[in-house]
C-alpha cells in the first residue's frame, strides 16, 4: 500500500516547483483496504526546503496535515505551498512525505523544489553557479537568445517601458520572461536580486558578477567562469565601474524611503516615482555612461541588469504586499497613464509579447509571445498590464510562478481562507 501525491503544475518531467502560493494537490491510496480508509499524515520532510499544508487555500498552512484516504483510491484534495523563508537550494531538497498515522509506516514521498528568488549577496555558491551557467548559455558568447532580451530594451523601444505607469508591470514581465528562458536551460534556477540599498561585496567578485577592473576596462572573472566570454552588441566583456565602495550600498534611497514615495495614501502614482530613485540611481551607481548598465540604450548589455530589476520588482511586490496594493482594480494600486499611451493602461497587452508592430509600437517585436510555464498558465502568451499585478495570486487565480524570499503569501483582508 502506498500513497500517490499529485500536485498541480507538475511539469512534463514529473517535477514540481512551488513558491509561497498554495497550489492544489491530491493524495490517493494505492493498494489500500477495500471499503475502508487509512489515516495518513502528510509532512514536510526535506533537508532544506520547507512545505506547508492545509485543507483550504490559506496563508497559515502547517508543517503537517492529517488526511483520511479512502481505500477505494479516491483522490483527497489538499493545498501545498513552500514554507515562507524556507526556500530550496536545489531540486528535491523539499519533500512531501506520507506516513501511516496508525503505525508510522512510510507510505510515499514526493521530492519537489521551493524555487524562490533570493538575495544575491547571500546566495550559496552552488545556486550562484547554476544561475551563472544558465546565463552564460543563454548568451552563448553573443550568439544566443540573450540577444532577444537585448533587442527589447533599446533607445528605440524605450516608450514601451519607461517614463510612464507601465514601467513596473513591463519590467516584471521582462524579468520573468528571462527567468523562464533560464529555466528552460536549468529548471532549478531563479533570478537572484541585487539588493542595491545594502552592501553587496560578494556580488561584485570574480566568482559572481565580475570584479571591477583597476583600469576601468572590462570586469575580471575567474578563469573558466561562465560569463568570461560574455558578448553583446559585438563587443566582448562587461565594463562596470562602481561609484560606491564595495562595502557600501549603491547610491540610492533605501527600501523604507522608497515605500514612502507612495505618500500617506500609499498610492501607486507616488510610488512609481521610484523609477527615478532608487531605480535610475541604482543604474547610475556605476560610471555614467561608460558602464553600459548606467545608460538606458545599453543597460541590458550587462546581465546585472536583471538582478537590479529583480530588486526593483521585489520592491514593488513588497510594497504591494505591505500596503495591500496587489489588486489591479484598486484605483490606488495603479495610476492613469501620462501620457495616455498604449501599453500603459491596465487592459493593454504589452509589447513585444503581443507581436504588435508599427507606430505607435516599435517596428519589430523580437522574441515572440511570452513563454509558457508548466508551473502556471499565467500570465499567458500575450500578457496585459493588469495580469502582472498579483504575482502570488493572493486574490485568487493563477500566480506568475515566482516569489521573493522576503515577500510572503498573505491573503488580503477582503479574501478569506478557502476563497478561489
Amino acid at each position: 500500500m502506498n500513497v500517490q501525491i499529485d500536485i498541480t503544475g507538475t511539469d512534463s518531467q514529473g517535477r514540481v516547483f512551488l513558491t509561497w502560493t498554495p497550489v492544489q494537490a491530491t493524495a490517493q491510496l494505492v493498494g489500500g483496504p477495500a471499503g475502508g480508509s487509512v489515516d495518513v499524515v502528510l509532512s514536510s520532510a526535506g533537508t532544506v526546503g520547507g512545505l506547508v499544508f492545509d485543507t483550504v487555500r490559506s496563508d497559515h498552512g502547517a508543517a503537517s496535515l492529517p488526511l483520511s484516504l479512502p481505500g477505494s483510491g479516491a483522490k483527497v484534495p489538499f493545498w501545498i505551498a513552500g514554507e515562507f523563508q524556507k526556500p530550496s537550494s536545489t531540486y528535491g531538497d523539499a519533500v512531501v512525505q506520507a506516513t501511516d498515522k496508525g503505525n508510522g509506516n512510510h507510505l510515499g514521498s514526493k521530492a519537489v523544489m521551493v524555487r524562490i528568488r533570493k538575495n544575491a549577496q547571500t546566495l550559496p555558491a552552488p545556486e550562484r553557479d547554476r544561475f551563472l551557467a544558465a546565463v552564460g548559455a543563454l548568451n552563448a558568447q553573443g550568439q544566443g537568445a540573450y540577444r532577444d532580451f537585448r533587442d527589447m530594451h533599446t533607445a528605440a523601444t524605450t516608450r514601451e517601458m519607461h517614463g510612464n505607469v507601465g514601467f513596473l508591470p513591463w519590467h516584471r514581465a521582462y524579468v520573468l520572461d528571462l527567468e523562464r528562458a533560464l529555466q528552460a536551460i536549468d529548471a532549478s534556477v531563479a533570478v537572484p536580486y541585487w539588493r542595491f540599498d545594502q552592501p553587496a561585496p560578494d556580488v561584485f567578485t570574480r566568482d559572481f558578477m565580475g570584479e571591477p577592473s583597476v583600469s576601468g576596462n572590462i570586469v575580471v572573472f575567474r578563469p573558466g567562469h561562465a560569463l568570461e566570454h560574455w558578448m553583446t552588441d559585438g563587443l566582448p566583456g562587461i565594463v562596470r565601474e562602481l561609484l560606491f565602495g564595495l562595502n557600501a550600498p549603491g547610491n540610492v534611497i533605501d527600501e523604507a524611503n522608497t515605500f514612502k514615495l507612495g505618500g500617506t495614501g500609499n498610492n501607486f502614482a507616488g510610488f512609481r516615482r521610484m523609477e527615478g530613485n532608487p531605480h535610475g540611481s541604482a543604474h547610475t551607481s556605476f560610471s555614467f555612461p561608460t558602464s553600459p548598465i548606467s545608460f538606458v540604450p545599453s543597460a541590458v548589455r550587462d546581465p546585472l541588469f536583471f538582478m537590479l530589476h529583480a530588486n526593483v520588482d521585489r520592491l514593488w511586490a513588497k510594497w504591494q504586499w505591505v500596503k495591500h496594493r496587489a489588486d489591479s482594480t484598486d484605483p490606488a494600486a495603479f495610476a492613469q497613464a501620462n501620457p495616455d499611451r498604449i501599453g500603459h493602461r491596465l487592459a493593454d497587452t504589452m509589447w513585444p509579447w503581443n507581436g504588435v508592430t508599427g507606430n505607435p509600437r516599435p517596428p519589430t517585436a523580437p522574441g515572440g509571445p511570452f513563454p509558457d510555464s508548466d508551473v502556471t498558465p499565467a500570465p499567458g502568451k500575450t500578457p496585459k498590464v493588469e495580469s502582472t499585478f498579483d504575482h502570488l495570486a493572493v486574490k485568487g487565480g493563477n500566480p506568475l510562478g515566482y516569489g521573493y524570499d522576503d515577500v510572503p503569501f498573505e491573503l488580503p483582508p477582503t479574501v478569506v481562507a478557502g476563497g478561489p
Partner: protein
Amino acid sequence: MDVKEYRRRYEAELAAASPEHPASFAGSPEAATRHAAQLGLVSGSPPGESIPALLATVRNPKETVLARDAALQALGAATFLGEDFAPYRVEFLDTMRQLAKPDTASQLREKAVAVLAAEKDPDIQGMLQRGLRDPQSALVSAGKALQLLTLDYHADVAGLAEEVFHKTDDVATKEAALRVLATNANSQDLLAKVLGDKSQPRALRALSATGLHSVNPQRFAGIARNIFMDGSDYEDIRATTLGALASAPEYQALRSDSTFLDQVRQLGAQTSLKNLRAAANRLMSNQ
C-alpha cells in the same frame, strides 16, 4: 514564520526607519553623489522639476568639481525618466559639449566626453581618434578613448586600435585596443598570435580567446584544444579556453575527439586546479 507576525515586525521596521535627509550625506564623495541624487529625484514635485537645477550646477564654474560631478551623475539617473527628461536633453547635450574641452577639470571632461561618445556624436569620435594619433591633443587617455569609441561599433576604429596595440606597452591600453579588435575578422591573426603566446598577460589572452571564437570558431577550437592539452601552459588560460568551448556547443570535431574528451574528463575528476576542474565539468555536462 507566521505571516501576521512577519507583517507586524516589518511594519514596525518601516515606522522606525528615519527619512533620508540630504544633510546627512555631507562629507564623502559617495555621500555627495547620494545627496545629488536625492536633490534631483526625491521630492513631492514632479521628477523633471529638479533637472534645471542640476544642469545649472553642472554648468556653474563657481561650484566645486565634486558638486558638479555629483549633479552630472544625478542627471545620468534622470535620463531614466524617459519623456520627463526629454525637454532638457538638448540643453544637457549642449552642456556636455561645453565641458568636453581641454580646460575643463579632467573628472568632468572625461564624463562629458563619455556622454557624447555614448550618443555616438561624430565630432567627439573624431576628437578621440585625433587624440589617439596625437596624444598632445588628447582629451582623455588612450585606453579611455578606445573604450569610448567602442560605444559605437560603427565608429570603425579597428585600424587605429591595432596601431595603438602595437605602439603601447601599457596592458590596460592594449586590453582596450584588443576589445575593439575582438570582433574584427581582419584581426584574427593578431588574436590567434596573442592567444597562443604564453608571454602575453592573461587578460589579453582571455580577450583574444573570446574574440577569435567570435570571428573564426573553427580556428579558435583548434588553438584552444592545443592550449588545453599543453600541460605546461598556465592553468588559468587552459581553464579560460575550456570555458569558451563549454558554452559554445558548435565544435563538432571536438565532440568526437576521444583523446581530448578523455583528458577533459580526467581533469574534471582529479585536478586540484579548481578553475580547470570546474570548466572541465561544465564542458562535460554540456556534451
